[in-house]
C-alpha cells in the first residue's frame, strides 16, 4: 500500500464524547482514487470516525480528539486550519437524503454559490447532475422543489450537490440505508464510476455492499465497554476471503455483531 501517497491518513486517533472514549488508537492510510469501506457493528464509531475526516464532529460540543488526521500531509486539526476550507475539499453524503427545501437547480448550485464560483453555473450544475446519473430524470424539472423527488433520486441529488464543488474526497455515511435495492445498485455503480476521479470513504452496514464496491475495508469493533478499535484494515478481497483476525472473520461470516 505504500506505492502511492495516501490522501487521508490517521495517526493514533482517539475520540471522546465528554468523558467517554469511543475510538481508540486508529491509524490507517487511505489511497487516492479508491473506495475505502468502514464496517463494524452498530455503535462502533463508524460515523464518528468518518466525521473526523471533514471536521463535522466540531459541531458536537462534547467532542474531543487526540492524535492526527492528515489530508495531503496536512493535519486537519492543527491550529489555524479552517474547517470550512476542509469541507470544501472533502465532501459528504449523509445517511438520510437531506436535500435543501429549494429547487433541484438551487440544491446543486448551493455549494458553488457559497464558495464564490463565478463561472458557468448552469453548465456546472448540469455536469454534476449528469455525473450523479440523475440528469435524464430531472432535466425538464430543474426548477421544481428537490423534495418532489423520490428517496433514491434525492440521494443522487445529494451526491450531485457534493460533486458540484469538485471535492477531492467524498465521505459517504451509509448512503443507501434509506433506499430500495434498485436505487442502491444505481448508487453503487455510480460510486465505482466516481472512484476514477475521486477518493471515496464509505460507511456501510451492508457486508455485501462493502465487498461489491470497495477496494479497501476497515473493520471497527468495540473492545470491552464502548471504546472501539480498528481490528483489521486491508484490501477488501483479502479481508473477505482470508481475514487475519478471528473477530473480523466472525463478523463477516455473521457469527457476531
Amino acid at each position: 500500500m505504500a506505492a502511492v501517497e495516501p490522501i487521508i491518513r490517521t495517526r493514533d486517533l482517539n475520540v471522546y464524547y465528554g468523558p467517554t472514549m469511543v475510538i481508540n488508537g486508529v491509524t490507517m492510510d487511505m489511497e487516492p482514487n479508491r473506495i475505502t469501506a468502514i464496517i463494524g457493528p452498530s455503535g462502533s464509531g463508524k460515523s464518528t470516525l468518518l466525521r473526523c475526516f471533514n471536521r463535522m464532529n466540531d459541531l458536537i460540543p462534547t467532542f474531543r480528539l487526540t492524535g492526527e488526521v492528515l489530508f495531503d500531509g496536512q493535519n486537519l486539526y492543527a491550529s489555524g486550519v479552517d474547517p470550512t476550507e476542509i469541507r470544501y475539499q472533502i465532501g459528504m453524503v449523509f445517511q438520510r437524503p437531506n436535500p435543501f427545501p429549494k429547487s433541484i437547480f438551487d440544491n446543486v448550485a448551493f455549494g458553488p454559490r457559497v464558495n464564490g464560483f463565478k463561472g458557468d453555473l448552469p453548465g456546472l450544475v448540469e455536469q454534476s447532475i449528469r455525473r450523479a446519473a440523475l440528469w435524464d430524470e430531472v432535466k425538464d424539472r430543474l426548477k421544481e422543489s428537490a423534495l418532489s423527488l423520490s428517496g433514491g433520486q434525492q440521494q443522487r441529488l445529494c451526491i450531485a450537490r457534493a460533486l458540484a464543488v469538485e471535492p477531492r474526497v467524498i465521505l459517504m455515511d451509509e448512503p443507501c440505508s434509506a433506499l430500495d435495492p434498485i436505487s442502491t445498485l444505481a448508487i453503487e455503480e455510480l460510486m465505482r464510476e466516481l472512484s476514477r476521479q475521486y477518493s471515496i470513504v464509505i460507511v456501510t452496514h451492508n457486508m455485501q455492499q462493502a465487498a461489491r464496491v470497495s477496494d479497501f475495508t476497515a473493520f471497527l469493533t468495540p473492545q470491552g465497554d464502548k471504546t472501539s478499535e480498528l481490528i483489521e484494515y486491508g484490501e477488501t478481497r483479502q479481508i473477505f476471503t482470508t481475514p487475519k483476525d478471528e473477530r473480523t472473520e466472525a463478523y463477516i461470516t455473521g457469527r457476531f455483531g
Partner: protein
Amino acid sequence: MAIISQGEFRRRMNRRKVEGHIFHALCLVAVLIGLAMLGALLFNILSDGLTRVNWSFITSFPSRHPEQAGIQAALLGSIYVVALAGALAFTFGVGAAIYLEEYAARNWFAKIIQINISNLAGVPSIVYGILGLEIFVRYLALGKSVMAGGLTLALLVLPIVIIAAEEAIRAVPSSIREGGYALGATRWQAIWHLVLPQAFPGILTGVILAVSRAIGETAPLIVMGALTFVPFAPDGPMSRFTVLPIQIFNWVSRPQEGFHEAAAAGIIVLLVLLLTMNALAVILRNKFQRRTEG
C-alpha cells in the same frame, strides 16, 4: 377467551359511547359560548358605530362636536407607532433568536437569559411604559414622540418575537445545517441561506402576534405621555401622537351619546386595521411556506 365477557363488554361499550357524546357536546358548548360572546360584541359595536364609519370620519381630526370628530390622527399614529415597533421587534428579535440558537454556548448563562426572556413576556405592559418614559422620553431625550412610542412597544413585544423566532429556528432540522456545512458553507451562510428561509413562516407568525398585541396596547403609551387630543397628523418620527385605543378610551369617557358612537366607530376602524395586518402577514407566510415546501 376475551378479557371481558360479551355482555359486560356491550354494557361498557354503551357507556363509553355516551361518554364520548357528552364530551363532544361539552366541547361544542365551549365553542358556541365563545362565538356568542364575540357575536354579541360585534353586533353591539356595529349597531352603535357602523353609521359613523365613513370617509370624513377617517379623515377628520378630533373635535368638541361629536358629529364632526374624526380618527385621522389616531389612525396614522397607530400605524406609525406599530409599524415602527414591528420593524424594530422583528430586527432585534430575530437577531437575538439567531444568537441564542446558533451562536451562544449552551451554558448556565444562556439558560438564565432564556428564562428571563420568558419572564419578560409576562411583565405587565405598564411597566414598559415607565421604562419607556425614563429611557426613551427623558434619558435619550426623544420626547413624547412616535419614535419613543415605537421603541416602547418594540420592547414590549420583543420577547414574543424572540420566543417565536427561537422556536422556528429550532424546528429547522439539523440535517439541513449539516448539509450546508458539508458543502463548505460558513456558519453565517448556513443561517442565512438555509435556516432563516425555512424558519421565516414561523417567525412571521410571531411578528403577527406581536403586532396584534402592540396595536391594542394603551397603558404603556399613556404612561409614556402620548396625547389624548391630537388635532394634527404625525409628520415624522419626532412628532407627538396618539393611537386608536387612547382615542377610543377618551371618547368612551365623555358623557355625550355622540362620542360613544364615535368610540364604536373607532373600534371598528381598529378591528379592520388589525384584520388587514393579520391577513397581510398570513398571505406573506403562506407564500413563503409554499416556496420552502415546494
